[in-house]
């Protein structure tokens, strides 16, 4: 499928060949030239070998999702050529540096059928002839891509100079290599036709991943402690926060395991420091006992749960949205919690900030779900959103003077009891994981135990009133009414924008950002008037669908579910809308 004003370039090679650097340089240079990009990375769970790719979708308006097919494939290795050849669309092009590449009969057939142009560039030889090193062949390939994109070379040269600013002796040779690629004879290849916008200063646009945005949101919200144990796709929160900790002064610590991460998080939050913890599904499994602990001790906790496919180790470096159930149902016992699902830069930034307000005000655990597709993909935005005011739900100084120990877990209508920090008041208390009275003293008596239990559960009702309803996008009178959460929003909205030019099908999409406790008033109306209600999720069981059905009785007969580690590509949504009735 070809879409007007969308062009897709994919750089592919072995892990360790520099595919990621090529992608990053390209993405920034393309953006600076007046275009919108979305960067999507695929890579294996190993350090060298296998196949990896960095795909850049280019458009003349904001985009947040990837195409399945590309217009230009640049390949550095045989394995990646084999892996990605069939993602090249009809009349597409391949440039590669694979010495003596011969095609298998299947590959040959695909190339002929789809009229794909393939050009070999002896990039390593060229780099050495020019007096450079083998690795500079990557710069030659960059230049060649730039030629196909038909963009002015100055834009890319500027980026190269910036990148090698600290190694001035290699700038000249890299610029020579860039020129060599840019001038290389690629006659016969279809050139990109890009619609460059000149109405604003694209240089100021930001390119960042969801994990960057979560980190920045945390910094802005006054998070002063971060604990984590590395696990893809959450790890880059740890590495980013560590990389800026001299600037921020944040305490950033890698801890020995997720059990400790969660319990240290509980300890630091209990004392009053805004503390973030982050992990993926397997690590979150280890944290769930601590999540339950926060339920009864009424300690705020915020955990980022960056999803990848499971069970077990699953597909460590691929995407998924299959951990909604553990976010909602994990941890023994019954207590109030909040589950929020981010989907793009703005959402990651704001949801992280809001999560702390909710956690502190309601004294509950808040789990922020993301997916590899959000955590590690590269989004373009022109600015960061406005910060949410910090709300801590702590007693004021005057209130503190009157506080008594039995206030701390006092039975209230809202379920929310007064909270103050250890050390701030001589009304001391016991934050007790055994059932307790209002000062934390242990009790096993039926009546007070039940009252305390109900008090904690009442918080859910209070919280629900504060949480926003899901948003609806698109047509008021849709032929198809989607319901989803997480990164699917990005793909559906992009698909809707594209479809507007090609089809008169009317589409609506309802997006759940605040997933639990779940608001359903708006959904019930939406479902009632829907001609065709479709659940769309990046998992196999339709976990949000089950949650909605359990609360509303509405069943989803139509489901578009994907669980192969890949995000929804726009073509898939468009074919679904156009073909399937």
């Amino acid at each position, binding site marked *: 499928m070809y879409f007007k004003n969308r062009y897709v370039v994919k750089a592919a090679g072995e892990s360790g060949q520099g595919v990621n650097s090529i992608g990053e340089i390209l993405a*920034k240079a393309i953006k600076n030239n007046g275009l919108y990009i979305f960067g999507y990375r695929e890579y294996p769970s190993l350090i060298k070998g296998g196949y990896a790719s960095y795909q850049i979708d280019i458009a003349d308006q904001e985009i947040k999702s990837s195409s399945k097919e590309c217009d230009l494939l640049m390949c550095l290795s045989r394995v990646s050529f084999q892996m990605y050849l069939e993602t090249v669309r009809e009349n597409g092009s391949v440039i590669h540096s694979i010495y003596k590449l011969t095609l298998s009969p299947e590959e040959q057939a695909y190339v002929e059928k789809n009229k794909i142009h393939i050009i070999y560039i002896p990039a390593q030889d060229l780099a050495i002839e020019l007096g450079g090193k083998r690795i500079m062949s990557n710069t030659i390939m960059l230049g060649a891509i730039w030629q196909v994109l038909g963009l002015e070379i100055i834009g890319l040269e500027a980026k190269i100079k910036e990148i090698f600013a600290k190694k001035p002796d290699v700038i000249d040779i890299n610029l020579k290599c860039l020129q060599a690629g840019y001038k290389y004879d690629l006659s016969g290849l279809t050139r990109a036709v890009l619609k460059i916008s000149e109405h604003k200063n694209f240089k100021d*646009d*930001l*390119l*960042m991943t969801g994990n*960057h945005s979560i980190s*920045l949101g945390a*910094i*802005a919200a*006054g998070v*002063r*402690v971060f*604990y984590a144990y590395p696990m893809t796709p959450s790890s880059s929160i740890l590495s980013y926060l560590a990389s800026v*900790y*001299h600037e*921020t*002064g944040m*305490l950033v*610590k890698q*801890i*020995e395991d997720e*059990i*400790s991460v969660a*319990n*240290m998080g*509980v*300890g*630091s*939050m*209990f*004392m*009053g*420091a*805004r*503390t973030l913890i982050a992990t993926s599904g397997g690590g979150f499994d280890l944290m769930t006992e*601590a999540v339950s*602990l926060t339920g009864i*001790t009424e300690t705020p906790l915020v955990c980022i749960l960056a999803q990848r496919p499971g069970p077990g180790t699953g597909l460590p470096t691929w995407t998924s949205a299959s951990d909604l159930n553990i976010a909602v149902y994990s941890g023994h016992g019954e207590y109030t919690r909040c589950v929020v699902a981010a989907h793009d830069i703005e959402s990651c930034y704001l949801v992280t900030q809001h999560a702390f307000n909710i956690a502190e005000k309601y004294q509950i655990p808040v789990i922020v779900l993301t997916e590899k597709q959000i955590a590690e993909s590269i989004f373009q935005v022109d600015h*960061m959103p406005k*910060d949410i005011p*910090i709300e801590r739900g702590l007693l004021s100084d005057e209130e*503190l003077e009157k506080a008594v120990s039995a206030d701390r877990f006092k039975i209230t209508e809202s379920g929310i009891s007064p909270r103050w*920090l*250890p*050390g*701030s*008041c*001589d*009304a*001391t208390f*016991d*934050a*007790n*994981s*055994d059932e*307790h009275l209002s*000062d*934390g*003293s*242990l009790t096993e008596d039926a009546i007070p135990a039940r009252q305390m239990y109900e008090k904690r559960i009442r918080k859910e009702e209070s919280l629900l009133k504060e949480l926003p309803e899901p948003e609806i996008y698109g047509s008021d009178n849709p032929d198809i009414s989607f319901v989803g959460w997480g990164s699917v929003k990005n793909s559906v909205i992009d698909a809707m924008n594209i479809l507007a030019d090609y089809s008169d099908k009317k589409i609506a999409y309802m997006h759940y950002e605040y997933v639990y406790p779940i608001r359903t008033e708006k959904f019930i109306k939406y479902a009632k008037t829907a001609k065709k209600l479709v659940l769309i999720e990046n998992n196999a069981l339709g976990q949000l669908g089950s949650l909605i059905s359990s609360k509303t009785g509405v069943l989803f007969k139509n489901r578009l579910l994907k669980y192969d580690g890949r995000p929804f590509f726009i073509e898939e949504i468009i074919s679904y809308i156009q073909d399937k009735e």
Partner: protein
Amino acid sequence: MTCKSCSSNKTPTMKDFQSNNLFTWCTNCGNYGIHTALRRALVAKKIPACQTLNCFDIGCNGNGSDKIGGYSFHGLHGRVIPMACGATMANSKMTVIAFGGDGGTLGEGVGHLVHAIRGNYNITFVLHNNLNYGLTKGQASPTTLKNMKMNSSPDGVTSELLHPANFVLSLESTFVARSFSGNVKHMAKTFEQALDHRGFSFVEILQSCPSYNKETPHEWYMDRVFDISNLADYDSSNRQQALAIAQDQEEKIAIGVLFQDKKSVPQIEKQPNRKDIVTDAYEETRHYDISKLLSKFR
């Protein structure tokens, strides 16, 4: 932290660390003595109750969480150490003490002990070593003597036992002490020394358990313990000497500070990016401007 409601700088008393809740430990349980000694040590060190956080594991010791004044956190079985480490990292001004049994500490949560020692977090950790799982009614723990018949091992424990003090001394610990639940005075003095230490203070209490440890009761310990400070030539800065003396747990059991590294630097002071920051993390909650960080993304 300054307590906003403290009426004056009055000297703390035993009463400040009292609670009206009734004790639920067995008659003659070693926990009574430990509890009293702790209160004495806190008073002797003039630590106000509102500046004390006692963190309890789940076990018989943990049932004391609401029987003492000051702030308490009664968390999960085996997880008290990371919880307490997190607390002191956020607020280094408060005195953080953690208590755990031999089951929770050396079974369920033994990894946490190792890493808290590596990190040298500034807490006092008290190991209630009663050689069994008390609260679950007398199963074997990692410190139960081999061949001992317990309710989970009617023909005797088949694994080797773990010597807590030796284990901890074999790591880069900075403070290792031992005391005995039958000697309140010695425990109180040992706790004071532990509270003075800057870093992870490990205090093993040889604790009698009248209900489930008939093999080594109070009297058994009484006959064997001796105060290390009575040894003229004992050098507590010598780890090898400490390891040698800690080894004997059968004939003559040394109590007191077995080892201390006086140059110990706690974890919170080792943060390379916080050298010039005088506040603690808990005091730093406010909006931070991220605009300076954005140039990297352009």
